[in-house]
């Protein structure tokens, strides 16, 4: 028994150290982002101020960071919505047998473990070849004028190649979450709805959707935050416009002031706000479900 108690104590210490290791560095830059105007990249704190946040909001030291911020936000929201819808539909499809389900499942897993640089490079090459083809066809006059292909430069961009690159990363997480959800989902609910004469759409809309809604919040959370912080798959696939993490990566080699910590803290703050909002939405969805079902789980 003393062995078990010792192991509990030991592993508790390892766990506490692990959590400190996870959060410690981030808390350090949180503190350092409030450096005084004369402060540097490391301790000691040279006064306490919002100087570096003010600089950041002026956009003085960092070039065009706010348009990158906006781009990442818009892309994140688009990825969030698409991930939720596509993962819900995909997860629901896997509740029944269909031809090719094993292959599709393997593709989902592959999407998760194929090195991101390979995916990103592949998408970039694909769009490059597409651009060349469009230009070549426009030159020989094979494309209708309304396409405006004469002055085609590139189809690559935030909401084409960039969106696709992000979805290859967020969808596997969404699908795996939906698997976990539907695995625990009672088939009886669907059967009862069907026995009561509900159409397939009615079963989905009135029996399935209300029950899985709280979990969809989790899928949306993963969709947004994974996109918001994505860098490896974005690297080759964004075209002209950089996302915020790409700009941040560029800054790591040039930054000499705590402004980068202010930006880092702000970015982490957005993630934290989204996580908090997701928990609130999850709780709200559970409450409304409980109300709608008169106390049923």
């Amino acid at each position, binding site marked *: 028994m003393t062995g078990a108690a010792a192991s509990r104590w030991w592993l508790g210490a390892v766990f506490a150290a692990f959590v400190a290791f996870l959060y410690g560095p981030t808390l350090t*830059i949180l503190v350092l982002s409030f450096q005084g105007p004369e402060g540097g990249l490391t301790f000691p704190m040279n006064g306490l101020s919002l100087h570096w946040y003010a600089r950041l909001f002026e956009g003085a030291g960092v070039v065009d960071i706010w348009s990158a911020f906006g781009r990442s936000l818009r892309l994140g929201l688009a990825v969030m919505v698409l991930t939720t819808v596509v993962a819900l539909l995909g997860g629901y499809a896997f509740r029944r*047998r269909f031809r090719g389900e094993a292959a599709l499942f393997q593709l989902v897993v592959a999407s998760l473990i194929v*090195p991101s640089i*390979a995916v990103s490079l592949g998408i970039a090459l694909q769009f490059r070849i597409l651009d060349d083809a469009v230009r070549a066809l426009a030159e020989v006059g094979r494309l209708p004028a309304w396409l405006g292909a004469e002055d085609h430069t590139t189809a690559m961009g935030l909401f084409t190649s960039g969106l696709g690159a992000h979805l*290859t990363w967020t969808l596997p997480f969404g699908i795996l979450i939906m698997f976990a959800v*539907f695995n625990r989902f009672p088939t009886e609910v669907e059967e009862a709805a069907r026995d009561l004469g509900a159409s397939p759409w009615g079963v989905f809309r009135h029996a399935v959707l209300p029950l899985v809604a709280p979990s969809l919040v989790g899928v949306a959370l993963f969709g947004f935050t994974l996109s918001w912080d994505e860098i490896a798959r974005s690297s080759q696939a964004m075209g002209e416009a950089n996302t915020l993490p790409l700009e*941040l990566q560029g800054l*790591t080699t040039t930054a000499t002031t705590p402004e980068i910590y202010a930006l880092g803290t702000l970015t982490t703050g957005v993630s934290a706000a989204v996580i908090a909002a997701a928990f609130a939405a999850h709780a709200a969805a559970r409450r409304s479900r409980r109300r709608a079902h008169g106390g049923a789980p």
Partner: protein
Amino acid sequence: MSSSRPDAAGAAVLDAAAPLSPEAGIAARSRRPAVGPGAAPFLQAAPLALVLLLFLVLPLLVTAAVSLWDYTEFTLVPDVTLRNYREMFEGCLSGGACSTLRTYVSTFKLCALTLAVTLPLGFAVAFFLAFHVRSDSARTALFLLCTAPFLTSNVIRMISWIPLLGREGVVNRALLGSGAVDRPLDWLLYSEFAVVLAFVHLYTLFVVVPVFNSLMRIDRRLIEAARDAGATGRQTLVHVVLPLSKPGLAIGAIFVATLVMGDFVTVGVMGGQQIASVGKAIQTHAAYLQFPAAAAQSVVLLAVVLLMIAALTRLVDVRREL
């Protein structure tokens, strides 16, 4: 094949039970949609399939094709040539300097070091959560505590190490102050050590989650039985818990290995752009618009990663675990 997923397994059990009870038979039949079997799931899976075909399968096929192309300073030249692969392994066979081999050795080393830390650490954390935290709500809360950092930016988590490990950083100040060293340690930041530290920081969660999942599935009676049979804690761990958590460890190892093998961001930022890695080699070729060379590197990387996954899955039937 499809019984790999528990829900499909559940459906299979239901189907198998159908002849035994009329109710189950009716239920099984009524699970088929009215519009005819097949149509609805196809339509529901179509968006997922379309995204993966357009942005995963096709790009990888394009990469394989382009790796056989030729290129000049300005354009890609469609062709079927082994030039890119030949240049990649130039010097390797003739006994000269083989940069590709050196890059792979460097990347494998990072991978091995990272696995050597993340696997035991992830196992310990998962073991604590699964066996030593008694209440479910406490377990969920602690689990979320470990997961939340995963949802924040990797780059920021990397730059957070600068004030701690830099020449003027907290660690060096403490060491100098205590007299343990007489000048600041240089290898703390922008070094192999820093890269591995960042990998451990970023990816241990990828081991914790699957191992935790495996541990939670272990029938607690097995552990009691082992104890009743007189096994010590250590013997129970080695002969009962570890073998049963092997699938989780294998999945975790696959995640970590594939993430490290293709990495170029962490190696770049934490290595101070001094350390070679396969991902960085690909990125460098792409930056110089040598796309066919980058594509060839990418194809070889994919092949190596697939071999590593195949080796790891031989240890365990991963599909049964998902």
